């Protein structure tokens, strides 16, 4: 007989742990969390640096500490944590098929499912770097795992392509472990990493950041021997005559993350091509009723604290669904959110007005860097609300709060757009 759970969570990273704790707090009695790794915590375990938890715990923790606290909270709920188990399939009637060395092939059924599989790194293939194919090219996260968990140094002379936070953090980490980081190379005219990481990971160690530059060739027969770096123009094309050669044995790639949604797609859940994650409603429910999603599987977040907040929302909604106390408002008064000018994506992608409590929160990213600017919320062509900001950047997730009465008053779809503030 298949075992029955109130809420089943796929993934025991920060999203899955928070969703499971929140499901329990909101009335789900039987909760299970399934993860393919041998331990809970997900990628936080290899993020040994500090900077996590300032919002949620009001103190600065390292990744393992943040994960450890949540794992403790989960254990206190008496929920089942099933590790070393690969989920093979999630069905529309909320059955989960999985495989583990201990229990073999098994199937459980759940009142509600939360998808929290996180994301994956983009690789060399995804960015298409020309040149030879020697050993010594790693994604920054893979190198982080080797260095911080498995205890292998991945190289001695390093060039980092991409200035996302993982790349910056690894620049410092490799330096502390005795490597020479020659350069951090970023194709855009700005870094997507946090300003604090530029300061404490690059400037502290005198590592140059080359903005508007990219790696145009990797050289080496067996191992990386050198890379060619060139400046790029406004259309991101390499400029001839700007070549620089760095003699190095290692290239780390910090070139973006992609939500990992094989299970989601197989379940027939609608995917948003902009986020590459499932299309979600205001309570993180996907297009399949009773299946929720949260964390980096939905869209890539900047801070784990934001993942936790979103996942608690998903866990609460999943518990309510499992206990039949969710509003059955699946098609009622649906307000689609349209991405207006300069908005790259929004989460949620639409809001069921009756399902919102006092307000709805919408998260989004802008397409470029803004100074003094205005976020405009419109009902069709009719302006509803304007939100002022002093600074916005693609690397910093923005969010706005829409009061419920405003949602109720809107006749059509809502449009969110961003523009520079007009100077007087």
């Amino acid at each position: 007989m298949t075992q029955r759970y109130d809420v089943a969570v796929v993934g025991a990273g920060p999203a899955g742990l928070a969703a499971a704790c929140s499901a329990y707090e909101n009335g789900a009695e039987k909760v299970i969390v399934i993860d393919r790794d041998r331990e809970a915590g997900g990628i936080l375990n290899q993020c040994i640096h500090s900077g996590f938890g300032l919002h949620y715990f009001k103190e600065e923790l390292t990744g393992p500490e943040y994960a450890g606290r949540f794992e403790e909270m989960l254990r206190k709920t008496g929920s089942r944590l099933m590790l070393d188990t690969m989920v093979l399939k999630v069905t529309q009637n909320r059955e989960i098929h999985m495989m583990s060395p201990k229990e073999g092939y098994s199937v459980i059924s759940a009142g509600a499912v939360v998808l929290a599989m996180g994301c994956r790194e983009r690789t060399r293939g995804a960015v298409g770097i020309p040149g030879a194919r020697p050993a010594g090219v790693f994604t920054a996260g893979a190198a982080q795992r080797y260095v911080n968990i498995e205890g292998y140094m991945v190289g001695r002379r390093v060039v980092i392509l991409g200035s996302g936070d993982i790349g910056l953090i690894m620049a410092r980490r490799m330096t502390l472990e005795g490597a020479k980081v020659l350069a951090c190379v970023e194709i855009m005219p700005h870094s997507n990493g946090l300003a604090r990481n530029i300061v404490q990971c690059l400037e502290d160690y005198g590592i140059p950041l080359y903005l508007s530059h990219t790696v145009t060739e990797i050289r080496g027969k067996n191992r990386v021997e050198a890379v060619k770096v060139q400046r790029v123009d406004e259309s991101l094309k390499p400029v001839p005559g700007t070549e620089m050669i760095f003699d190095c044995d290692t290239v780390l790639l910090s070139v973006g993350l992609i939500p990992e949604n094989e299970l989601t797609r197989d379940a027939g859940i609608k995917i948003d091509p902009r986020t590459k994650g499932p299309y979600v409603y205001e309570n993180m429910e996907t297009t399949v009723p009773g299946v929720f999603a949260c964390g980096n599987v939905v869209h890539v977040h900047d801070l784990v604290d934001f993942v936790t907040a979103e996942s608690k929302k998903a866990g609460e909604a999943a518990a309510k669904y499992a206990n039949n106390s969710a509003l059955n408002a699946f098609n009622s008064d649906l307000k689609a959110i349209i991405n207006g000018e300069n908005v790259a994506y929004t989460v949620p992608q639409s809001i069921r007005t009756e399902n919102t409590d006092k307000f709805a929160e919408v998260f989004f990213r802008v397409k470029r860097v803004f100074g003094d600017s205005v976020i405009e919320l419109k009902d069709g062509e009719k302006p509803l609300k304007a939100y002022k900001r002093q600074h916005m950047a693609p690397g910093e997730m923005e969010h706005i709060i829409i009061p419920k009465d405003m949602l109720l008053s809107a006749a059509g779809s809502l449009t969110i757009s961003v523009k520079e503030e007009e100077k007087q």
Partner: protein
Amino acid sequence: MKKLELERNKAPENENRAVKELICIMCPKGCRLKVEEGGGYAVTGNACPKGAEYGRKEVTNPTRVLTSTVKITGAIHSCCPVKTDRDIPKQLVLKAMDVLSGVVLKAPVRRGEVVVSNILGTGANLIATRDMEAAE
């Protein structure tokens, strides 16, 4: 507003200037601080008291929290993550790494356990940042 990294990549700071511009590293917000060098080291541009403290320290005695790993035996992994339980002088960070390279722990280890006490006489303890169970 220009993106800050572009500005920062320009010519190095003029050492004689009375005001030093810094980016606060105390939280992800990254406030742009101005610190008067000398006198009371007045800090502006900070959104919270931590920023003022950081600004003052950064121009007088810069400090950092060190996070790294040490070797461990008998656990499922060969590294145990550690951190200093308070900030230590920035110029001692690499020296502290030398101390860490000589440390070998034996599982089990508990989160918060002191691995090296009073590292380099800084008053900071090096502590484990996760539980490491003894492997079966």
